[in-house]
């Protein structure tokens, strides 16, 4: 059964918005996704009917709110096949999740002489937290290079991992669309005695995730790229690992006991959730997970593969050598994210002209400057799709690009 895109699109009111009397073509879902009605409704009805503090007060309304909040945690745990909902920590966003990993696990485990291995295709969120800590702790950061066809070059991976304590990598590049062999990378990390930290921001919204099948140790992802609201992210980590990690942020909610001279931490996962969490947003994320599960992540992936194939051929058939797509050709190896260069026109100018046609793409370095340097671009234009994207969005992109040539 194929995905009924028209039905999916009806759930996203914003997609039928007109700008200057014409429909819009939102091709920036790798940046952030739109929200279905069910998520918007769940958040507003929760605020209208059930809103209360969670985990603190004992009256019935607070208990009800706590139950809804914790039910969302269970949904997220099932969505990624975590062993237990105790392994799911809610953060502000995936960036905070990765900072938590670095500041809590990294600070407790890394010292001079140690190494953390990253890849050349990481988002700044999986680079800078490690660099910040390395400046302080004096450990080494090593980099997995890329092949000419935009894959990780694994030929010297074992050597890079030798003596490393952690291997932190993205499961899908936010620039290239490349899908990395997460399971194999986790195995390589473990073989070297390192833990595997996965930045799942780009893959979790778009394909089935199974942290047990991956045998990963940590996974970071954000709600707002997977039909949920902004303001909440997730750090999943193996329970024994979370147990061994010191707390990250201190405050209310994360303690068991506080005396003048010391404190003890709350049980997992609350140990890592200091202060009032984004309650409404977590409820929205839970509903987004229900929404995606209802469609089926394999259906989402299949739809995006078809669309990737369609887009690749439509762009190259029309523009041939005038367009350079920075990423793998094979739709099995990539997500529906296309970074491209077009006829030597600067990406900002490309996106400006596309905007005139209500075709919304991102132009810039996509928070991946080391990767941009590697592919020899200061910036690219990037069109990225999701379950609600359709062939008409691709066609609009192809048509609008023609107008770029008419100006430049």
């Amino acid at each position, binding site marked *: 059964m194929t995905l009924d895109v028209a039905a999916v699109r009806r759930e996203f009111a914003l997609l039928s918005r007109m700008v200057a009397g014409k429909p819009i073509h939102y091709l920036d879902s790798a940046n952030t996704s739109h929200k279905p009605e069910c998520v918007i409704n769940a958040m507003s009805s929760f605020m209208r009917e059930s809103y209360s503090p969670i985990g603190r007060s004992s009256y019935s309304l607070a208990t009800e709110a706590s139950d809804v909040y914790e039910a969302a945690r269970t949904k997220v745990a099932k969505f990624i096949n975590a062993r237990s909902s105790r392994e799911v920590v809610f953060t502000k966003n995936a960036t905070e999740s990765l900072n938590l990993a670095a500041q809590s696990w990294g600070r407790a485990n890394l010292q001079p002489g140690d190494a953390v291995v990253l890849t050349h295709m990481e988002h700044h969120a999986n680079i800078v937290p490690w660099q910040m800590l390395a400046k302080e702790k004096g450990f080494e950061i090593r980099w997995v290079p890329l092949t000419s066809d935009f894959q990780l070059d694994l030929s010297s991976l074992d050597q890079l991992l030798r003596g490393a304590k952690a291997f932190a990598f993205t499961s899908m590049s936010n620039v290239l669309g490349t899908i990395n062999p997460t399971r194999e990378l986790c195995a390589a990390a473990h073989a070297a005695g390192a833990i595997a930290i996965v930045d799942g921001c780009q893959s979790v919204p778009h394909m089935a995730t199974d942290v047990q099948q991956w045998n990963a140790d940590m996974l970071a992802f954000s709600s707002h790229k997977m039909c949920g609201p902004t303001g909440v992210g997730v750090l999943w980590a193996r329970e024994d690992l979370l147990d061994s990690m010191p707390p990250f942020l201190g405050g209310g909610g994360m303690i068991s006991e506080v005396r003048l001279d010391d404190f003890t931490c709350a049980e997992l996962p609350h140990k890592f959730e200091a202060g009032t969490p984004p309650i409404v947003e977590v409820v929205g994320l839970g509903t987004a997970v229900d929404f995606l599960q209802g469609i089926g992540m394999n259906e989402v992936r299949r739809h995006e593969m078809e669309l990737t194939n369609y887009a690749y051929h439509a762009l190259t058939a029309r523009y041939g050598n005038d367009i350079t797509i920075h990423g793998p050709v094979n739709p099995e190896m990539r997500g529906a994210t296309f970074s491209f260069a077009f006829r030597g026109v*600067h990406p*900002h*100018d490309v996106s*400006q002209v596309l905007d005139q046609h209500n075709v919304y793409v991102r*132009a*810039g370095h996509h928070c991946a400057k080391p990767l941009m340097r590697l592919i020899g671009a*200061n*910036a690219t234009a990037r069109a990225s799709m999701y379950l609600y994207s359709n062939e008409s969005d691709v066609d609009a992109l192809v048509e609008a690009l023609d107008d770029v040539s008419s100006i*430049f």
Partner: protein
Amino acid sequence: MSNLEDLYREVILDHYRTPRNKGELPPPATCTEGANPLCGDEIRIFLDIADGVVRDVRFSGHGCSISQASASMMTIAVKGKSVADVRAVAKRFKQLMTIEEDDGKVPADIRLGDIEALQGVVKYPVRIKCAVLGWNTLLEGLDSART
């Protein structure tokens, strides 16, 4: 096609396609780097200043049509002018870009000429940063030349 013609005026596209004073100046000319971290645009402004006059100017780097054309037009506007007049032109330009208010301090005879073609940028707020990148770098260069 569109109101993009307001943004991409012919004089702007001309400076983009055929930038003036693109290149470098050897020391003792000053070299100042500027970048727009949001889009990755980078620019270098070379200034040869003597006796309070900008005797020569070059720019290098890469960026979108607006940043490149703006830098190119800027070099023409400032070459041969006194440092004080260059600062006044820069101030006038920032007023045009609506990022500085007109405080009446820029003399009336300071005119922008062709550069006024960039006025269309104001309708596209995210592009204002592109247009002023070269100018801000120029001002930094003037500051460093003074010390």
